[in-house]
C-alpha cells in the first residue's frame, strides 16, 4: 500500500533521513520504533507532505506522492495524527470535526455520528472548545478529526505521548478497533511494549536509517526495547 524508497529529508545541512526504505502492507498495523531524534517524526511529516524530501520516492497504492502538498496527500487518503495532537483550540469539538472533513463538500453527518459512537466522550463535549479538553480527549479528537477525511492509511505519531496509562489503554483499544474496521495504520510509538502487542510488523530506526525490520516474534522483546531506547550497540 505504502512503499518508501531511499527517502532523504534534510533541515538545511542536517540530514534527518538518510535513505529510509520501508513498506506498509494493506490492512496491517505497522509500527516504527527508535530513540529520540532518530527521524521518526520527520519521516511521518515527509509522508504527510508537511516536509519536502530532498530525494527518494514515496509510492501510495502505485502513484508517487513525494512532491505533493499536504492537502493533496490528504485527498489521496492518507491522514496524519501529528505529534502533540494539534487541535484547533478556539474552535468547538464539532467544528474541529467539520474542519477534518473539509475536503468533502457534504455527507459527513454519518461520519460525525460514527465518530461520536467511537468516541462517546467527544459527543458529550461536542459544543466545548477543543482547547479546554484534557490531553486524552484532545488525542481522541485529533484521531477522530483525521478519520473524518476517510483515510485509507492512518499515520499516528506517538499517540500515547504524555497520557495517563489508563488513557493509553483506551488509545490502543481504539487502534485495534480501527484495524478491525479495515484502516491500515502506521504507528510511531515510544511505548514499545504496547506497540509490539498490536503490531504485525515493526521497523527500528536510528540516526535517520532503518536498522531492523521484522514481525514482533523475530526479535526478543527486551532486545527490541533496548535498541529502541538505547540504539544498537556499536561498541
Amino acid at each position: 500500500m505504502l512503499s518508501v524508497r531511499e527517502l532523504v529529508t534534510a533541515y538545511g545541512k542536517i540530514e534527518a533521513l538518510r535513505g529510509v526504505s520501508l513498506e506498509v502492507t494493506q490492512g496491517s498495523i505497522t509500527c516504527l520504533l527508535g530513540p529520540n531524534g532518530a527521524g521518526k517524526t520527520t519521516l511521518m511529516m515527509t509522508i504527510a507532505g508537511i516536509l519536502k524530501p530532498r530525494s527518494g520516492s514515496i509510492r501510495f497504492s502505485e502513484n508517487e506522492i513525494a512532491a505533493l502538498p499536504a492537502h493533496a496527500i490528504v485527498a489521496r487518503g492518507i491522514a496524519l495524527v501529528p505529534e502533540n495532537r494539534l487541535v484547533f483550540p478556539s474552535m468547538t469539538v464539532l467544528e474541529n470535526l467539520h474542519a477534518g472533513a473539509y475536503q468533502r463538500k457534504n455527507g459527513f453527518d454519518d461520519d460525525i455520528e460514527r465518530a461520536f459512537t467511537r468516541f462517546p466522550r467527544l459527543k458529550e463535549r461536542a459544543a466545548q472548545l477543543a482547547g479546554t479538553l484534557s490531553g486524552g480527549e484532545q488525542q481522541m479528537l485529533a484521531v477522530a478529526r483525521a478519520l473524518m477525511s476517510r483515510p485509507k492509511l492512518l499515520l499516528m505519531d506517538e499517540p500515547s505521548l504524555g497520557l495517563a496509562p489508563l488513557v493509553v489503554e483506551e488509545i490502543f483499544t481504539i487502534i485495534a478497533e480501527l484495524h478491525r474496521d479495515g484502516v491500515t495504520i502506521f504507528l510511531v510509538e515510544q511505548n514499545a511494549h504496547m506497540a509490539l502487542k498490536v503490531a504485525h510488523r515493526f521497523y527500528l530506526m536510528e540516526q535517520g536509517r532503518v536498522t531492523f525490520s521484522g514481525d514482533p516474534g523475530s526479535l526478543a522483546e527486551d532486545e527490541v526495547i533496548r535498541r529502541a531506547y538505547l540504539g544498537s550497540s556499536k561498541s
Partner: protein
Amino acid sequence: MIDFVQNTLDGVTAGASYALLAVGFTLIFGVLRRANLSYGPAIMLGAYTATWVFLQTGAGLIVLLVVAVLATVLAGSYVERLCFAPHRKGAAAAAMVASFAIWMQLEELATLLLPRHLYAFPALYEGGPLIFGPFFLRVESLLILLAAIAVCFVGWKVLYATRFGIAVRAVIDDPRAAELSGIDVGAVSLRVFAVSSAIGGLTGFLIVSSHEQVTPMLGMWSTLKGMLAMMLGGLGSLPGAIAGGLALGLIEAHSQWYLGPQFRDFIAYLLLFALLAARPPWMNTRSAY
C-alpha cells in the same frame, strides 16, 4: 452635555470606517500572522482607479464602487503573491518590509495615474445631514456605519456557518493542523486576502465619496488608522477589531473637542502605548509577528 452626545455620534460614525479598516487588517493578520503595510496603499489605488474611471467616463456611484473594489482586490492579491506567499515560513520582518516596498510602488503608481494633489469624487449622498433636536448626523456617516454593521454581520455568518469559514478559522487557529486536515492553506490565505481587500475597496470608496475628495494621503492614513484600531481592540480578533475601530473614533472625536485638534492623534497614540505597556488580558500578547 449636548457636545458630549454630538461628539459621541461623530466618534461612532468615524469609528465605523476605522472598524472596517481594522477588520480588513485583522483578517490578513489572523490568517498570515503578518501586518500588511500595503493594505492602505492598495485601498488608495482602488479609490484612485475609481476616480480615474469617473474622470474619463463620469460613471455612476455603483460602477465606481465596483471599480474600487476590483482594483483593490487586484492590488491586494498582487501584494499577497509578492510579499506574503514567499515568506510563509518565518521571515516576518522581510514580509513586512516587502509590503512597505510595495506600498511605495503602489503610491507612485497612483500618482502617475492622477498626478494632481487633490481630485473631486462624486458625493455619496447629495442631501444635507439629518437633524434631530440639537444633534446632526451626516447621512454619509450613517451609510458607513450601516456598511460596517453589514460587513460584520456577513463576515460573522460566513465565518461561523460556512465551510470556507471553518477553513479560515482553522488556518487562523493553527496552520499546521489545517494543512493536516486537508485545507490548502495557501489558497485560503489568498482568498482571505482577496476578501479583506474587497472590504478595503468598499471602505476606500465610502471614505472618498463621503469626503468627496481623493488625496494621496489616503494610503498612509488608512494603514495607520487600521493598524491602530486593530491593536487597540486586541490583535487578531475580529470583534476586537470592530471594538478597536469604534474606540479609536470615540477617542479622537472627544479629544479633538476637549483638547484641540493637535492632541487628537497624540491621545490616540498615547492610549495605544499605555495599553500595550499595561498588556491587558484581551490583548493576547503571544509573541505575534
